[in-house]
């Protein structure tokens, strides 16, 4: 039985990709655990579990944040966007990442794509410097860094022609 003791586990409503999920969480559970291990949003990867690699990035209220360093109890009521939604909405990043082979093992890739989506939402025409600084918090053990710049610029171009 869940204990609703004061300050203990409680029910929160997580707004993920536009859908509401009511779930009982303990204070010590982080958002990445809840998204990935309990709700099946498996695109939100764990690598460092200390906020240092960006592979667990989600967009919260428009900001790219590392979900491993955020308590799930504090995420209720905020708009959370995961890589699954970026794919579902057929964001051009998904194709341009494939076109430019911006991955090797692919483990870090969702974190990069989510970070890139947050960047393009704010800055539809980022130059190389802007892309590099937005990705400063993402680590790729396979060293695919240059390809991300090409993929993100290509996605920005597609978004522009889509709008035109």
């Amino acid at each position, binding site marked *: 039985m869940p204990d609703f003791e004061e300050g203990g586990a409680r029910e929160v409503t997580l707004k993920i990709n536009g859908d509401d999920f009511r779930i009982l969480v303990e204070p010590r559970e982080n958002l990445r655990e809840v998204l990935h291990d309990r709700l099946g949003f498996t695109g939100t990867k764990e690598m460092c579990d200390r906020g240092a690699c960006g592979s667990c*990035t989600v967009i919260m209220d428009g*900001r790219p*944040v590392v979900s491993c360093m955020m308590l799930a109890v504090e995420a209720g009521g905020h708009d959370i966007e995961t890589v699954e939604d970026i794919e579902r909405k057929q964001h051009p990043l998904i194709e341009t990442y494939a076109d430019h082979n911006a991955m090797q093992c692919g483990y870090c890739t969702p974190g990069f794509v989510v970070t890139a989506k947050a960047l393009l939402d704010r800055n539809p025409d980022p130059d190389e410097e802007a892309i590099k600084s937005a990705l400063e918090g993402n680590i790729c053990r396979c060293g695919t860094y240059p390809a991300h710049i090409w993929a993100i610029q290509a996605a920005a171009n597609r978004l522009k022609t889509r709008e035109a």
Partner: protein
Amino acid sequence: MRRFKHFDASSLDEAVSLLARFEGRAKVIAGGTDIVGTLKDSVLPEPYEALVNIKTIPGLEGIRNGAGVLKIGALTRLEDIAHNETVQTKYAALAQAARVVATPHIREMGTIAGNICQNTRCWYYRCAHNRFHCVRKGHAAPGQSLECFASDGDNRYHSIFGDVKDCLAVNPSDTIPALIALGATLKTTKRSIAVKDIFPPSDEPTKMTIIDSDEIVIEVEIPEPQASSRSAYHKVAIRKSIDFPIVNCAAVVDFEGDVVKDCHICLNAVHYKPYVPERAEALLEGEPLTDEQAATAGEAAVWGAKPLPMNSYKITMAKGLVKKILIACREAG
């Protein structure tokens, strides 16, 4: 991770009474990027019993530009400070400091008050599962004496102004030197206090700040600098992203022509608290700021430094950094 209680405070009063109720065993959580790490690593011998979330209190976030003073709400994210136009133009050192904290993701979460109140990064203190039960953690187990493991361990990132019988950990904040050089003040639930005064005296080097366990930072206030002044900040770290400073420095210099009218310098990560090199400030005032003067100020800034076996390189770094920042102030604007 050990269990803890968690409360969403809806007002400052509620948060303060929760903190008081736990008598020091509860902590405020804002951005969480520091405290969640210490909890994951079970760094502390006695973990916090409760966290009090203050993000649910309205009105603590945002930058307001008032009459001659900039007011930054405690929960304002570092990324928002780095990108704020007023901060970039009038308080450049702060924008530059906020811009290089950790990573963009951390800056989207981390707050200005959290950056000021953050815990130490000493690798003995931070080592997982309280492996090094050091003097900073206190409460020796029976038959155990407390020591600073850095004093004869790997002390390459530790204090260059410390005394080896104390804790040698340094203050790792990026924004504090900029705030001190700019003359910032903190407004808390208990008082109004200059940022430079929130640090404990030298016989208590194991405390990060003198802010009480039931006291909450509400706002940071920065007086508008003179129109004739310029500021700059720089951090030396291993990697451009994520790493804490090895040494960092901010300066605000007010010029009359080429002559320095007034000057404030603050180094960090060199001492248990931020270090204001008063000798360097004094020798600059009233003189033109030449490259030679800047170099002499760098020498004066590290006067009295006592390196540990592995960190004399930090003295060279601090000297060079002071010179570089002063020249950056001269060249700016």
